[in-house]
């Protein structure tokens, strides 16, 4: 029995310490994913906390057909989709506001001290442009791109997480990549070779 399987089994029996260990094991990874979808610390934390509440509620029905990590991605994605849906329903926030990028955070995350100032500025601009473009994409496409390119999930894992056939994942991922490129046409000079 794997560590996860044991922790899940104990958690299913009501062992709160086991569930706490499960949270500790996955919370950082969950946060990374949520942050890359939202680019917002508070939203990312909320998504992760909500996701673990859903995990807790649904754990008794978890039968291990997929890896716990993959299942968690699915729940995180659903929490993210729900968050955006709620925002749309409220109509309180503009699209720009939902793409809230904390400039200082982005700079702190992506700066590479081995580059000179001009390279840092240029790369930061590219990365910010990609982040912003991701934020403008339909949530499902966004999640798919982040899962594959940033979280390095395989097609099989994305297929399980999103409950889609692998062929559909591949075709939708291609569409998502093309859509991302289209969104970045206004910044095309940042991505032109030479």
């Amino acid at each position, binding site marked *: 029995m794997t560590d996860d399987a044991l922790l899940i089994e104990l958690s299913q029996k009501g062992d709160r310490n086991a*569930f*706490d260990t499960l*949270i*500790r094991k996955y*919370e*950082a990874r969950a*946060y*990374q994913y949520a*942050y*890359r979808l939202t680019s917002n*610390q508070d939203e990312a*934390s909320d998504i*992760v*906390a*909500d996701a*673990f*509440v859903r995990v*807790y*509620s649904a754990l008794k029905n978890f039968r291990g057909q997929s890896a716990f990590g993959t299942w968690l991605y699915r729940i995180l994605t659903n929490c993210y989709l729900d968050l955006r849906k709620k925002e749309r329903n409220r109509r309180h926030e503009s699209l720009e506001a939902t793409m809230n990028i904390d400039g200082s955070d982005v700079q*702190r*995350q*992506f700066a590479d001290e081995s580059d000179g100032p001009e390279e840092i500025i240029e*790369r930061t601009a*590219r*990365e910010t442009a*990609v*982040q912003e473009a991701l934020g403008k994409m339909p949530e499902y496409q966004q999640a798919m*791109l*982040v899962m594959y*390119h*940033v*979280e*390095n999930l395989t097609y099989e894992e994305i297929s399980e997480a999103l409950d889609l056939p692998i062929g559909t994942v*591949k075709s939708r*991922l*291609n569409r998502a*990549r*093309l859509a*991302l*490129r289209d969104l*970045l046409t206004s910044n*095309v000079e940042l*991505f*032109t*070779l030479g």
Partner: protein
Amino acid sequence: MNLNRARDFYSAYYEGSLDQGLRQAFEHALSNESEVSAEYGQFVRIMDELRRLDRPVEVPSDLHLKIRERVDAHINSKSRKTSPSWLFAWKPFTYGVVATAAIIGVVASFSSNRGSIGTAGLIDVPTSDPVIEFNDGTTVLKFQSAAPNTVSVTRVEDGSIIATVQAGGKRIASPLTNSSEGAELVRIGFSSNFRPLYLAVPGTKAKAQPEGKGTLADMMVAMADQYRVPIVCESTDVLQPTEWNFDQADAVQASSDELGSLGMKAAAHNGGLVWISSK
């Protein structure tokens, strides 16, 4: 291969999964179509840029605490939300000879209602055994205890204690109300002298369960749902397996065969309440 057609293969070519024929056609377009070459070059740089986003993000130091708080709040709210559905509104009061009833837990909130509850069925306590009556749609537990006695009402499904009453005097009587939609089964236990009773009380909505298979406890709940009357059982083994098929209008007749096979019998009491006991 024109630009639109080439776009269909950007991903596959980028991942190296394009088959040989298409790969050659795509590479030909890359070499000979400047638009394809330029656009694919941008595509590659964007894909590379996406991968750069996988650098670790600083995790807030209070993340774990926040998760724990949220999970704990969920668990607490769940128990608060579900409690009322189990709750048998235990509203004890004294009558006849003055009795003392100290109410614990959820019952405490009802102390101000003392004496304000309807009087149906609260006229006398005929014996020292616990009695459950069903009058005008109200299920009432009555008992008389000369010695101090603790009465506890426990939800059978999960073993949770719904209410506990310390009855240090002579007589008490309490209406028992199930506020959930479906019938609920409780065990009424006494600290001394009296046998425990199992009681299924109909919920607020009619739920037909004419056929089924399970335990005697399940059957009691199904009967309460089906016939909308309380079902009382003196047996201590409500987990013995049984089947039921309530094909008759009368609850006692409908259950007689099943109960007979368990060595038990049912009798109708006032108001239609069904009392199950050993033969």
